[in-house]
């Protein structure tokens, strides 16, 4: 996207992440996606008269962990509050959320680039309950409250982003951290990660913020970037034609690739927040917080730096290897076991990534252990397995487990690199094809490949190609 020169965008994001807990935030109902409508409900999440919420402590712990990882101040005492509005998917007529005393304040999401990191400051992170879903069918509206009461963390950024790409990158890094810490599955398609944006434009160099609009329904990374670009261009067009940007909420339509204003009535909502009287102030003790701090794993960015520093990887490699915690853990074990970081990285980003992708598998579900892959890497490096054979062995190990040596034996893939044996083989191939030898010597150098092919087929591809080449040249050019 490109704004006309002289303009810049200012973006802040509000991200809702479903917190991955077994039960809902205020009742014992199981969480999950889909399922028969209204099957995962109870008097509490149905908003039945007399039913009371009881806070799932796990939600506090996991959100505090996120706050700690992002450098937020985590409150020892925060307050749940009621946000009052009517909607059919909100059975109590209010959402239990947080208002003036959120669990976490401040902190930043860091975006790494080659040679540094850029910080996008956070305003706050608070906990709240998810609403249900309205389903519109044949002119009727139905309500499914399975999702109602699923725990959410709302992560609110400062207006610190300047381009759709940066917003997308911010969202990606936040999602990376959520997965890294096991807080959310970050699945945007299933709605476990959702994004709203506030966007305004101004002349480069201005310090005042322009009038912002709010964009809702940004349900994919692509939608975030596209919607922001569309909206910024719209605002610039309005301003350049002498108009004024109105404070509106817009819904992004991913099919039409355009935004539409929500009905005006939704605009001037007064949510009449007040402290939730059914719940006590929520917080973790200092002891619980220090336990969380002690258990906080090294951040993806620290691991990235460490890969560049200790394994001599470039930024690109290190960044990809640190996208998932299981990946970098695997890498470090692999690099140590095979003693070759470059080869380890090449294998993981190349063949392993390709095969995982084909299988739609994650690294944590693998039967393959880092030391088995290390064994394979060493076999290839020492010329005991050809590159092709090594790929076949990897495939077997991914499918059935077992060690590289085992599979090499079982599949009879050990590379022939014994000089004497290969020399005999070369000799017999040359003897069996006198015409071709003659033509080669007469100048048809392309026939070299024919001899290699003959040897390879005689050895079922196991011959060490380097050695074969050397011996052939010896025999032919002699």
């Amino acid at each position, binding site marked *: 996207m490109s704004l006309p020169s002289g303009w810049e965008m200012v973006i802040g994001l509000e991200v809702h992440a479903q917190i991955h807990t077994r039960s809902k935030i205020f009742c014992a109902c199981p969480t999950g996606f889909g399922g028969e409508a209204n099957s995962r409900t109870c*008097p509490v999440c*149905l*908003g*039945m*008269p*007399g*039913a*009371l*919420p*009881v*806070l799932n402590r796990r939600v506090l712990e996991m959100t505090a962990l996120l706050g700690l990882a992002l450098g937020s101040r985590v409150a020892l005492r925060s307050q749940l509050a*009621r946000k*009052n509005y*009517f909607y*059919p998917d909100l*059975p*109590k*007529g*209010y959402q239990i959320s947080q208002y003036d005393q959120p669990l976490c304040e401040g902190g930043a999401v860091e975006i790494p680039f080659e040679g540094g990191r850029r910080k996008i400051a956070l305003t706050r992170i608070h906990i709240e309950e998810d609403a249900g879903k309205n389903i519109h069918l044949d002119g009727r*509206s139905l*309500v499914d409250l399975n999702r109602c009461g699923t725990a959410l963390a709302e992560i609110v950024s400062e207006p610190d982003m300047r381009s759709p790409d940066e917003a997308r990158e911010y969202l990606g890094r936040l999602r990376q951290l959520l997965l890294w810490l096991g807080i959310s599955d970050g699945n945007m398609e299933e709605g476990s990660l959702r994004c709203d944006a506030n966007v305004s434009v101004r002349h480069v160099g201005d310090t005042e913020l322009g009038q912002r609009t709010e964009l809702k329904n940004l349900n994919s990374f692509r939608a975030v970037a596209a919607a922001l670009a569309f909206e910024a261009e719209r605002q610039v067009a309005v301003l350049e034609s002498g108009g004024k940007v109105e404070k509106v909420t817009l819904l992004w339509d991913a099919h039409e690739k355009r935004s539409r204003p929500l009905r005006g009535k939704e605009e001037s909502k*007064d949510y*009449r*927040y*007040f402290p939730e*009287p*059914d*719940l*006590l102030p929520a917080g973790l003790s200092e002891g619980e917080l220090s336990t969380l701090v002690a258990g906080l794993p090294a951040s993806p960015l620290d691991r990235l730096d460490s890969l560049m520093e200790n394994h001599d990887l470039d930024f690109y490699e290190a960044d990809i290897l640190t996208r998932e915690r299981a990946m970098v853990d695997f890498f470090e074990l692999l690099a140590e076991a095979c003693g070759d970081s470059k080869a380890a990285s090449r294998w993981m980003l190349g063949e392993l990534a390709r095969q995982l992708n084909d299988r739609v598998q994650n690294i944590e579900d693998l039967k393959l252990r880092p030391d088995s892959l290390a064994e394979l890497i060493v076999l290839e490096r020492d010329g005991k397995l050809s590159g092709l054979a090594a790929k076949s062995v990897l495939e077997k190990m991914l499918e059935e487990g077992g060690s590289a040596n085992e599979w090499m034996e079982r599949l009879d893939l050990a590379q022939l690199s014994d000089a004497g044996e290969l020399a005999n083989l070369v000799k017999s191939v040359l003897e069996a094809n006198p015409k071709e030898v003659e033509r080669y010597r007469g100048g048809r150098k392309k026939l070299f490949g024919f001899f290699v092919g003959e040897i390879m087929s005689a050895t079922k591809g196991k011959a060490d190609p380097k050695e074969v080449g050397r011996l052939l040249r010896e025999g032919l050019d002699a």
Partner: protein
Amino acid sequence: MPERPGLRESVERIRSGNFSSRELAENCLRRIEALNGKLNAFAHWDADAAKADIQDGPLAGAPYALKDNLCREGTLTTCASKILEGWISPYSGGAAARLDEAGARYLGKTNMDEFAMGSSTEYSVYGPTKNPWDSSRSAGGSSGGSAAAVASEMVPLALGTDTGGSIRQPAAFCGVVGIKPTYGRVSRSGLVAFASSLDQIGTLTRDVGDAALALESLMGQDPLDATSLGEAIPALQPELDRGVKGLKFGIPAEDQWMQLDAGPARVFQDSVDALREAGAEPVEIALPHAQHSVAAYYLIATAEASSNLARYDGLRFGPRREAETLEELLLANRSQGFGAEVKRRILLGTFALSAGYVEAYYQRAQKTRTLIRNDFQKAFETVDFMVIPTTPTAAFHLGEKSDDPLSMYLSDIYTLPASLAGLPAASVPCGLDAGLPLGTQIWAKTLDEAMLIRAAASLERAFPFGEIRRAALASLVEAS
């Protein structure tokens, strides 16, 4: 004459085999059937309740009634509102579950002001409850049905809920004992919320001993109510005979908010004198912020109510009206489903929380509440308990205040301070004014139900009111 003993006597006699629990339940049901047409104390009851025989538990076989805002699995729970017409609770709240577990026998639900909003049990879809002492008068409210049911011996124990006095005031009007324990002592799970930070379940019984027995079963932490308290529950029955000798009790210093007519003033003075004669020492106590209780209460309670009652949109409970759009549907369901007083309070509470007003109203009311709480904290540094009249007057006539909400609100002045502070409070019948009962309230410090029972029992010894009630209500007794 069929026997209808009080709670303790019922349990003792069932246990000793002197009386079957079914027989007792049958007597109560006959009494309800005979008298309810006249008193309208019960909203609905289970005519088959006497079928099973119950022998076990601390309340073995003793019949009880719930106010119609308390959930019990499989029972109609309407809060005396059209908007919950036909709603059957799919679960039991903490209070009903505990009574059932203690072996008590559920008979039915009592009448109330719609959603517990009122002080007269006139704002009910079932029509007003009549005072057993004078059927032209109010039984009080909002737990008027429970108070009238106990006074008229339909049942030895009825639960009520008290948000600003809704147990104590009807207890005083009907000449029975009403106790609201400390906020958090009895689970609010299954109590259909009016004002969550104030609502508390308590008992209406014929005497203090019956209340002590019931409360021992009723109180205790519930994992389903985050605001319920984990502190140990004191044994209450041993407190009944301890007396108040050597204790200090507070009397609120005469102030503009404490103005009584001659009759109620005399009855209250009798209570003070009786406690003094029992060996306790009166101390005048200043509660400088109590005079703001009515204002603070009606802002906080209505603010919470405006949110608590938002769920009644007609989509899931009660009758649903036809409409074209969602907004029209909500409007139709709520306009037709709620009564005038409920609407009045929803509007008031919505206003108190609105942008631009929330600081001046809701938040200021919360600050006032804190000041009132602090007043009490200071007071209880000096005294063991406090006494104050329950109501400024005896039961008023039906219709006398129902069209004058402000005067209705103002009549709650004596019960509101303890509600705002979350204190345990009791109303004990202590005398008559022009033939109508009056109650004296006891306030104890947070969690000190033991002291509450101890002081209430002493007061009761000075005024053995049971005999007076039986004599006065003899015509009712004959009616069954």
